[in-house]
């Protein structure tokens, strides 16, 4: 292996970033709970209010998970195992809810179902299932497409009915994938904030919304820190369980997915095409409802909401104009993309270094398990007051967003680097290239594309992120998601209309970025290996 002299040191920057903005705030958070005596800390951790919210949130997350599985499994079956025209489009479409900002999803469901269902438990559960559909379809579908369809046929020739063969043979083989996707969906639903704030009622809360309330309304920082700690421990536990279940994978040979044609049996056709149609309807209905809401008032169709977006009147003076929020969000997205691209890219490159240095890439995944509110609160407590007050610098939000995005960047860049052929570096150095040049010959082309693509992804994350931003945004300069939630907190149909218009812009920006990333991924795939 050709090792440039700087390679063993690339871990320094990501490690420093994580130590300063993740580890230090978390440690600081833990000491805040103690806030005085050990007995007080214990009291905070054992308070019945805290555990009531925890139990309710766990119930909500469980039902959300079950619903996501019930809807997601048939879609995964059809989309990953059958061959039909429009299959790839359907598969891409199912991913859309997952990349939509949660605040936007919440508003979409409020406009779609708000008149049929009261705000509360049911709406929250439906929105969570919607967002997480892609998790189930992607994770379970990947495993499902690997299963040999003849395995079920063998069971059929041994006397098993179609359902029996599915239950006996297919389901056990899918169990690891179902378990890991369920763990992820549970965690997302359990730590949800934007959806709970917009669609929930007084009873439908998560620890996440509790933390925000304790911080922003009650000013009970030790209590909020206690909530954050309980949540952190529970989430870590569930994710570890999911990972353990996911490892128990009996048939792990990777092969190209064997997609079969849809049989000519009319019932089978109805099953496949019916499922695809329902999937389309489920994914598109909320988005279309959102677009309609941005164009409608109680007196009919209107462009008033769109035309008032640039004027300060649209909000009260306290809110600031929606267009200003858009500028703030785009700026934050740009900084986030840069910081996350550099930090995540270097953390990923560290895997190529010899020795234990590569551990930094594992550390860089930790923010995945830390909720947005925990991160926001931690940063606020650590850097929101003297002597280290960064609130005036406008840096806290992008820093939080970069923390959220770094694991994504690492997850995208690392496998790409691993798949690059390191022998090219050796070859280059036999041709007279110095170590750095040789390294760049082997890994440069991959790095360039992948880091930019994942930075764009980080930008998309930043545009839609609400949790951390709601803690860290300054009153006068909210991000778009924060602005949307503030607008919805005000009465009047203008607020909803303008919020819907802002949401449509956010959807368009997010989808454009994700599409760009997708394109870049495809162009990389075309480069001969």
């Amino acid at each position: 292996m050709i090792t440039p002299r700087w390679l063993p040191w690339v871990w320094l920057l990501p490690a420093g970033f994580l130590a300063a903005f993740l580890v230090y705030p978390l440690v600081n958070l833990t000491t805040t709970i103690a806030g005085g005596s050990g007995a007080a800390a214990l009291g905070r951790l054992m308070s019945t209010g805290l555990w009531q919210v925890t139990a309710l949130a766990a119930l909500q997350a469980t039902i959300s998970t079950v619903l996501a599985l019930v809807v997601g499994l048939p879609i995964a079956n059809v989309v990953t195992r059958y061959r039909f025209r429009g299959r790839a489009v359907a598969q891409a479409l199912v991913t859309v809810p997952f990349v939509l900002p949660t605040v936007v999803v919440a508003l979409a469901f409020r406009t779609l179902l708000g008149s049929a269902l009261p705000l509360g438990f049911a709406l929250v559960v439906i929105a969570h299932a919607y967002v997480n559909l892609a998790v189930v379809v992607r994770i379970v579908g990947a495993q499902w497409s690997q299963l040999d369809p003849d395995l079920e046929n063998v069971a059929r020739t041994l006397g098993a009915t179609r359902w029996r063969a599915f239950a006996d043979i297919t389901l056990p083989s899918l169990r690891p994938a179902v378990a890991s996707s369920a763990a992820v969906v549970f965690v997302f639903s359990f730590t949800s904030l934007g959806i709970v704030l917009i669609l929930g009622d007084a009873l439908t809360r998560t620890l996440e919304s509790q933390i925000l309330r304790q911080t922003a309304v009650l000013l009970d920082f030790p209590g909020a820190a206690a909530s954050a700690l309980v949540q952190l421990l529970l989430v870590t536990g569930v994710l570890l369980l999911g990972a353990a279940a996911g490892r128990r994978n009996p048939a792990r040979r990777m092969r190209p997915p064997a997609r079969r044609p849809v049989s000519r049996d009319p019932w089978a056709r109805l099953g496949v095409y019916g499922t695809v149609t329902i999937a389309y309807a489920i994914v598109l209905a909320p988005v279309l409802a959102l677009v309609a809401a941005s164009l409608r008032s109680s007196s009919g169709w209107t462009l008033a909401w769109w035309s008032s977006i640039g004027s300060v009147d649209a909000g009260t003076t306290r809110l600031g104009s929606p267009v200003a929020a858009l500028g703030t969000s785009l700026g934050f997205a740009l900084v986030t993309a840069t910081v996350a691209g550099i930090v995540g890219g270097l953390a990923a490159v560290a895997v190529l270094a010899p020795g234990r240095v590569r551990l930094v890439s594992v550390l860089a995944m930790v923010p995945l398990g830390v909720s947005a509110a925990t991160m926001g609160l931690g940063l606020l407590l650590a850097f929101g007051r003297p002597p280290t007050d960064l609130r005036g610098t406008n840096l806290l939000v992008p820093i939080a967003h970069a923390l959220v995005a770094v694991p994504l960047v690492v997850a995208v860049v690392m496998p790409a680097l691993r798949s690059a052929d390191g022998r090219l570096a050796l070859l280059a150095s036999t041709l007279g290239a110095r170590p750095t040049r040789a390294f760049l010959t082997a890994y440069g082309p991959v790095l360039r594309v992948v880091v930019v693509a994942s930075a764009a992804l980080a930008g998309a994350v930043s545009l839609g992120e609400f949790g951390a931003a709601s803690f860290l945004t300054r009153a006068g300069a909210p991000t778009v998601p924060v602005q949307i939630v503030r607008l919805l907190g005000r009465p009047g149909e203008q607020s909803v209309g303008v919020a819907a218009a802002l949401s449509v812009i956010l959807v368009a920006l997010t989808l454009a970025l994700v599409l760009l990333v997708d394109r870049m991924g495809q162009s990389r795939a075309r480069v001969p290996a």
Partner: protein
Amino acid sequence: MTPRLETIGLSLGYEGEVFARGIDLTLDPAEIVAVLGPSGSGKSTLLNTIAGVVPAMDGRVLVDGRDVTRTPIHRRGVGLIFQQPLLFPHLNVRDNVAYGLRRQGLGRDAARRQADELLSWVDLAGYGDRRFHELSGGQAQRVALARALAPRPSVLLLDEPFSALDLDLRQRLAADVADTLRQHGVAALHVTHDPGEAAAVADRVVALEDLFR
């Protein structure tokens, strides 16, 4: 005497396209017939159509004189062995073999006892607790044979069952399988591209192209 298996004017097709018509094939009780043809010539589709995995484009399939053309796979009384053993990965060897017996309504313990007996027929006594990945290729294929024989199918269909194995093992296993089938008086339709294997296993060899009309 009723043939075990009879196809009358059977047409084969895939994704709506017919590529073979008018196949008439008869298997007498305890007869082993080999169908010889190059790869890609439709041998697997023939077996999959008889088993009901793929619908027949035209014609009829009779098992023990009973028309099963529209009968679902699990009620045809046809066993199937593929090129790969396709053992159920989450079940051990014994429960793989017991699977078909359980579907016939046999209790768990009785099915497992019978499975152990079947395993000794294929020289795998004592292998019941093993998992798929603890078996060699030849052993796994013999488990697949025991599993297919367990529910006493009227006809056993073998789709190139040895082609994934080494030459040496292939010849030995082919002879073993033919012995086992004869001992149990099972009628079998064996498709292969290997004339030597066809001759070693079968009572009668037919060329696939001679079946097409």
